[in-house]
């Protein structure tokens, strides 16, 4: 367990935001979202002051090294008296998910009160009855959840999970190395770039993008469409057209090992802090949207504390600080307004089409729609066999 507080490499793009953003945020409250601090009744919901949380690495703003600005966890401790034992050892949706199974699901006393798997894993957990409902009476800021995240067929209205951050899996490339602008998923299969293209080792994203390239809709996948997508991925891997990459795609792109890659929007935004020449595009055919979701494992000891945490991070002022730091799409209404009001740097972020896609861009984002469990498992197995 990493334990609190979390520190990470400092990013200049973020550091300049931290000072002014907090003040600007206060003024911007209520522009679109609103902050509700009603305490509600925490009886029968366990402890309120201790929280054990498992999250992905580098996925929350931290206290600056000189201590001039406090990260979310420190602010939470000083404002709410909530101590968070924060573990960021969650690595991926396959082997990493085993941590959740071993330490939060298949045990009588879960070691975590809050875990943050990707949306389709959260859906599996909800469908398997492994999670507690969100304590709405403690999460009054649930009202700030962007409706775009509330229509999932597996959790309409978001009663069992609350999105943490959302991202786009699109294409990142180095224009100097490609020699041209990339606008289509098919560009990743251009023989000219053979061996220097990255493909993310997440089945739903890799196969989803391939499906889009084939003209299929991954938000309503059919078996035939998914298999055609998988075949395309298989062929690209076996012929050496693409290399399977993980969350190190940004480093490989930065080093020039890759000229283009399937990429997560947030990590690319971080890379762009030091490499503004790197481009991130939502291809013409569309891109895959996903989100990581906060869920409370069944029998968690501190459900009330988890509720208080959710309420805090769904306050637009707090959410804006996290967004500015991690560079992913915030599911919290009002963040764009807070950023805009926080000064020129915040306004620049507020204008980012990757952080705040407009209606036209949103129409080109596809969330994996899911097949039956057996088929998904088979596709996962076949895909994982391709990954070295």
């Amino acid at each position: 367990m990493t334990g609190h507080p979390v520190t990470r490499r400092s990013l200049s793009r973020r550091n300049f935001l931290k000072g002014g953003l907090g003040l600007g945020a206060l003024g911007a409250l209520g522009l679109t979202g609103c902050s509700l601090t009603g305490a509600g009744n925490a009886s029968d919901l366990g402890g309120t002051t201790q929280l054990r949380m498992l999250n992905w690495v580098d996925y929350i703003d931290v206290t600056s090294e000189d201590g001039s600005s406090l990260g979310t966890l420190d602010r939470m401790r000083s404002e709410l008296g909530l101590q968070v034992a924060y573990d960021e050892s969650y690595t991926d949706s396959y082997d990493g998910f085993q941590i959740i199974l071993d330490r939060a699901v298949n045990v009588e006393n879960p070691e975590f009160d809050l875990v943050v798997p990707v949306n389709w894993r959260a859906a599996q957990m909800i469908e398997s009855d492994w999670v507690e409902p969100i304590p709405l009476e403690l999460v009054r800021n649930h009202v700030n959840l962007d409706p775009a995240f509330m229509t999932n067929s597996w959790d309409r209205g978001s009663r069992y999970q609350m999105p943490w951050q959302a991202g786009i899996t699109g294409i990142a490339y180095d224009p100097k190395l490609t020699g041209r602008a990339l606008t289509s998923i098919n560009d990743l299969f251009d023989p000219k770039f053979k061996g220097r293209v990255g493909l993310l080792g997440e089945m739903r994203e890799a196969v989803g993008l391939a499906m889009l390239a084939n003209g299929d809709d991954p938000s309503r996948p059919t078996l035939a469409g998914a298999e055609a997508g998988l075949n395309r991925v298989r062929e690209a891997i076996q012929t050496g057209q693409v290399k399977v990459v993980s969350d190190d795609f940004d480093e490989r792109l930065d080093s020039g090992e890759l000229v283009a890659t399937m990429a997560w929007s947030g990590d690319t935004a971080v890379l762009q802090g030091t490499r503004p020449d790197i481009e991130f595009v939502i291809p013409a055919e569309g891109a895959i949207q996903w989100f990581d979701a906060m869920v409370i494992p069944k029998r968690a000891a501190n459900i009330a504390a988890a509720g208080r945490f959710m309420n805090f991070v769904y306050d637009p002022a707090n959410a804006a600080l996290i967004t500015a730091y991690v560079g992913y799409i915030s599911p919290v209404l009002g963040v764009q307004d807070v950023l805009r009001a926080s000064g020129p740097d915040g306004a620049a972020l507020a204008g980012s089409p990757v952080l705040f896609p407009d209606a036209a861009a949103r129409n080109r984002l596809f969330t994996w729609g899911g097949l039956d469990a057996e088929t998904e498992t088979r596709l996962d197995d076949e895909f994982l066999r391709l990954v070295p």
Partner: protein
Amino acid sequence: MVTITSPPRPPHAPVANPAPAAPVARPARARARELVQRDAEPRRWSRSNSPGWYRVWAVLTAATLAVLCAVGSAAAIRSAGATSLIQTDTAPALLGSQDLFGSVSEANAAATAVVLSGAIGAEDRSRRSLYVQALNRASGQTEELSTLVGEDTESRDALKQIAVALTTYSGHMEASRRENALRGNQAEAELRTALNLASKDMAGAVDTVTDRSQDRFVEQRQQGRIITLVAAGCAVVALAALLRLQAGTLARSNRIVNLPMAVATVLVAIELVMLGYAGVVRSTALGRAETDGYRAIQATALLQRSAFELQSQLSLDLLSGQTETSETRRLQLTGSVNSNLAALSSIADSDRERAAITELGIRWDRYQKATAPLVEGKGAATPATISEFQSSGLSAFNGFNTTIESVLLDNRSQFTSGVDDAARAMRWLPWLAVIAPLVGIVGVLVGAQRRLGDYK
């Protein structure tokens, strides 16, 4: 004729008492009367002496227990059966018909928005996906409902009508979409035909299914009440008989406890208590399910229906301009949403529910604010207005609608938990109603036999 003969005295038997005087000859009629009286005497003697008393009361008590067994088990089976039917069929049918309302209304709202977006350019893919999902849900719910309504002819006919209407409805929607894509002039007419089909034929049929399910719910709630009262009466009589038998035993033998009879008495007392307890719990739990759960579900479903209709109306007005009628209708629907929100708020009985309804209210305000500027102009909307509606109005509506569903789910949990409690209370009653009197009969007969054995 009874002949009485005296046994011959042995020849050398001592004479204890002086021999009585020879009887005086009596008239034949008097002698006959005497003989009849003597003949009757042993029977009178058997009711008043102890073994006879035990036999009579044991048989009487066993008979009341047998009656209790028959009536009690019939009452328990009837009540438990009705409760089980509520749990497995009627309650899901009630919820299913409300879901069907929701799905059809959502399909309407989403499809209208799709046509609206298609009118100004590329159709809204996510809205189209919501329409397809809602239509598929409605189709699945119709199939599921037909397995839940049993042999109810009226409901079955209504469901057949819905199934046919759904096909026709989707046909019109697709025609509207195609016309839109080809920039034909029939898009709006096809859309209106589909909406009419939904609001008249389908909504009417769904109403029929809901009404019939509600009738069945009330009917099944009442089932078994009278026979349970009769069974309770039988149990009181049986208990009285058992107590009389015990009291008699105590008086005649000075034995305080006759164990088999005491066991029988306790079992019958337990059955009486359980009949009362299960009846009260069942009635309370179903009442709670109705007041806390179902009424809230109805209010939520009405709210959802009004909101969806409002959304469809708004889309149509943006497409072809407002009329006085459409404006009035929109105002009515807004009033309906507001009043149902107030009703829901007054029904809410937990912090969680109140929090969800507060959220619903905030999201409703957002939707109204987002759409207010759009309905100010009287003519058909411009592409810019429609685009604004697509991005902010529909998004706010999504938030409102999915929050309604969230509230609906909470109310469903309350409803099903009330029904489950009722079913749980009835679970063991049929067994108890059979076993307790039967064991009681055995206890009475064994207990009486033991006492008779003492006499021998």
